[in-house]
């Protein structure tokens, strides 16, 4: 079974976002970048599939030269190959999907797995765009996945519950947190990853579908009334919530 796992490089969740000089992206100074947390679940799911069925996992990312670090992390976790589609410029979702679709068309992957979203732009677009571009079935937010032969069954999270689904390979799947417990790369794997191949190629150019005009930090004025733990202050909090804020 050949699995393609799409990964992206994102600021660590502890990052305090500041707007950069261009006014439409973040200031990178001091920002620590990591493998997108949801992609770790995608990669773990792919690795478990090939451990059970044979085959190999290829990881793929679209981005600048610096993205090589998350590819090495992915190779250390157990992927055998990596494809690095290089672009120093930030591409829009359509263009990223188009580039990954080209990679997918050049090899016969049985399943393409992604994280439910990348935690930078939170766009939730890749899984369905790839499904459409490759004319494959796609399912997002998958919290449980079973693949037997070409039969795919599983559960996906929806508001207030889960949908139980069935489809067949080849398919595109995006996974939810909790589907598995991602492994930590061990030192021998980290060493071995250094000699695994990374196929670097330039991004194909596509027309711009969307563009970011500006970015800002949302500011909300807060009341900021901080009380003590006395009984009268606890009663006062209830009064404020009922009469001033009118929320309970």
């Amino acid at each position, binding site marked *: 079974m050949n699995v393609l796992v799409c990964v992206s490089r994102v600021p660590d969740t502890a990052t305090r976002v500041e707007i950069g000089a261009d006014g439409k992206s973040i200031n990178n100074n001091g920002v620590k970048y990591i493998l997108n947390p949801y992609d770790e679940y995608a990669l773990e799911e792919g690795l478990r599939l090939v451990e059970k069925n044979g085959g190999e996992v290829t990881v793929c990312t679209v981005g600048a030269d610096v993205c090589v670090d998350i590819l090495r992390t992915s190779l250390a976790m157990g992927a055998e190959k990596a494809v690095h589609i290089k672009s120093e410029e930030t591409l829009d979702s359509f263009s990223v999907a188009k580039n990954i679709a080209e990679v997918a068309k050049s090899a016969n992957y049985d399943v393409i797995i992604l994280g439910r979203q990348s935690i930078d732009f939170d766009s*939730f677009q890749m899984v369905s765009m790839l499904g459409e571009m490759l004319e494959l079935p796609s399912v997002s937010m998958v919290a449980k996945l079973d693949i037997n032969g070409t039969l795919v069954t599983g559960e996906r999270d929806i508001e207030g519950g889960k949908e139980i689904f069935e489809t067949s390979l080849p398919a595109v799947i995006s996974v939810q947190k909790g589907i598995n417990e991602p492994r930590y790369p061990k030192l021998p794997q980290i060493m071995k990853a250094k000699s695994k191949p990374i196929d670097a190629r330039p991004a194909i150019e596509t027309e711009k579908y969307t563009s970011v005009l500006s970015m800002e930090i949302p500011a909300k004025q807060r009341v900021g009334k901080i009380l003590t733990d006395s009984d009268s202050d606890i009663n006062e909090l209830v009064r404020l919530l009922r009469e001033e804020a009118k929320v309970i």
Partner: protein
Amino acid sequence: MSKVNVIKNSNLSSYSSSAIASSVAQIATAESCSIIFYPANSYGLEIAPRTAVKLEAGYISDCIGLDYNGGDIIASKPVYAGKAVTKSKSERTNKIFSLRPNIFTASESNSTSVTICDFAVNISDKDLKVKITGLSKNEGKLDVSEADKVVSGGRGLKGPENFYIVEDLAKSIGGAVGASRAVVDAGWRPHGEQVGQTGKTVSPNIYIALAISGAVQHLAGMSSSKIIVAINKDKDAPIFKVADYGIVGDIFDVVPKLTAKINSLS
């Protein structure tokens, strides 16, 4: 609103993102509609990108605001889980937006008549490859991302056995229970309750944070709440900086009294 197209097709009796995207694209083409809106929920977020590829449309997801500027629609969209907001636009003739639930309000239509038509669509077998075979609802539990009142607990609760403090307060105000990442990672609570950058983004009318210090990733997931209340024994906890109301105190002492007071009034 002047026209409603109704699609009746037995292939649409069960949800398929591909079949719905194909149907919408067929209507948009037939009616020359160049702007399409979807809800940014677990269905719209699957259908919209497929429609965008079919119609070669520029698609912006999870919008919280739309400004009409000449011929352009400028969409506001939270990024980095709400730590920042971008303004962006579609560069294509066809434009698709998915809108975050509970942000936009409906207004009265001033059109005098609405035409309702049946619209026939072609759905091919390749659009029916995913079948929904069942549905399980989280019985009796309000989902944290849908609730208009949320009470969340953090590591300061010291153990899963103490979460009744959070649940009791949530029950007293009719709210859902949420949890910090630390608590979910420790296995005290299911990940479906996690609020924050790798959990759910919530914007209820009232968000009460109990024994949650307020890590950046947690604040990102709840800072768009209308009213934020924090109870924490550390007066310097970052959560107080985003709080409308707060109590500096031990949750084991303060929260049961707070719950009792609310219950006595209702």
